[in-house]
């Protein structure tokens, strides 16, 4: 193994070990396990609409999809929470000085930190998704292997959360960095909603009535360029029931990949200026 790769892996290993023993991580883990345990109940009940019992397969499909989305969103929050103090902790506990007095570059350090945080949060999300997968398998004797594949696709959102929080935490208090990253996620969700609504016949009629032009070019540019966290999650969820995504559905995923690269480059540029103490 090359020295560079060994350094990155070592730093990733230390990051995971240090974060996983934090009380906050253990609390998050306990809450997540409780959530999955409670979600189990959804697979036991009978669902009635207008006095007619719903088909179990349809209910299971819907519940599994919803659980998938909730877990993916929670995991993103967890990734952001775990990332927000990672530099500050290393600085306060003397690990940065220790690491950078060795022949380790800032790039190797950053890669190790981001990789460790991403791996840990991805593992947590995958474990929770796997718990739902096993529940469906045991309760309903139905295996949905694409559920786990979709979970892996969602890890790109976690990478974005980790990188963005790390980047913001270099310029503002940790909590503000967390809130700003979450704000990007929430805005992405709201924008998707507003965009979908704006294409409904009713909304179009209203816009016409108010004299608002139908093609809002500036707004569309912002919409398409904004990190499409929710869209990327929806893209991953499509695989659960074997839906074939088109180019429109694939775009959010590519958008997040590009954002990860751009945010990573910004993080590297900003961290190069950082004073080590």
């Amino acid at each position, binding site marked *: 193994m090359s*020295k560079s790769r*060994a*350094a990155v892996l*070592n730093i990733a290993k*230390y990051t995971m070990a*240090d974060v996983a*023993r934090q009380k906050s991580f253990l609390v998050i883990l306990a809450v997540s396990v409780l959530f999955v345990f409670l979600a189990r109940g959804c697979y036991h009940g009978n669902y009635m609409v207008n006095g007619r019992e719903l088909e179990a397969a349809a209910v299971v499909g819907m519940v599994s999809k919803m659980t998938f989305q909730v877990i993916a969103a929670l995991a993103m929050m967890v990734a952001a929470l775990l990332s927000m103090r990672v530099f500050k902790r290393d600085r*306060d*506990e*003397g*690990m940065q*000085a*220790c*690491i*950078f*007095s*060795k*022949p*380790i*570059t800032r790039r*190797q350090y950053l890669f190790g930190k981001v990789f460790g945080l991403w791996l840990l949060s991805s593992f947590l999300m995958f474990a929770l998704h796997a718990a739902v997968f096993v529940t469906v398998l045991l309760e309903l004797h139905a295996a949905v292997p694409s559920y786990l594949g979709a979970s892996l696709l969602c890890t790109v959102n976690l990478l974005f959360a980790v990188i963005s929080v790390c980047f913001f935490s270099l310029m503002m208090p940790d909590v503000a960095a967390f809130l700003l990253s979450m704000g990007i996620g929430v805005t992405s969700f709201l924008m998707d909603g507003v965009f979908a609504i704006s294409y409904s016949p009713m909304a179009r009629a209203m816009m016409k009535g108010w004299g608002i032009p139908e093609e809002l070019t500036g707004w569309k540019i912002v919409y398409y360029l904004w990190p499409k966290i929710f869209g990327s999650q929806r893209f991953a969820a499509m695989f659960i029931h074997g839906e074939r995504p088109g180019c429109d559905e694939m775009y959010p995923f590519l958008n997040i990949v590009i954002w990860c690269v751009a945010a990573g480059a910004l993080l590297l540029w900003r961290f190069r*200026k950082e*004073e*080590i*103490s």
Partner: protein
Amino acid sequence: MVAVDHVSFSVQRGESFALLGPNGAGKTTIVKMLLDFTPPTAGTLTINGISSKQAASRASVGYLAENCRIPPHLTGWRYLLRCAELLNIRNDEAVEQCRRIVEKIGMQGREHAEASTYSKGMLQRFGLGAALVGNPQLLILDEPTAGLDPIGIREIRQILEELKNQGTTIFLNSHWLSEVEKICDHAAIIHRGRLLVKDKISSLVREGDTLEDVFIRYVKG
């Protein structure tokens, strides 16, 4: 604010060099620039001919920070092992090296306790231990005796003397002039970011004087 201005000096291989100066003189800034912790706005620093901006310049450097800190949940032993891993030292060799270092810094029996239970002096010893991992050719020590009791100071001095005899280059930042006089053979005095003098300690100290007298004479002008 200018912390260091027009400072230029070199330290030869095998030298024991002390960088002296009052508080705020720019000693720690020089050390930080040497390790690329702080980028200089102008000028260059090299270690073994390699620019300090390149990580390779730190390949054979050991560093002890002023007020050394160790993650509180780590044991001293794990901390040393991490340092060895970061230098790509093979596992069995790392264990053997760490065992020797623990012995050298006089921390046998306490190496498996968590750092949160260590006193300031013990942290400083493990910090020195971490600097010794990988048998560095150059040891950069920023106030190595800070927080140590007189016995600890003497033990650190003995370790440094031993390293000096083995040919390790020592770069020492310290206020403890009596210790500097015993350990180092060269010294530089800086004040308000400017280099006042750099010479052999034997040349700086006149008969009947101490290094403290020399230091005060230069700093007070």
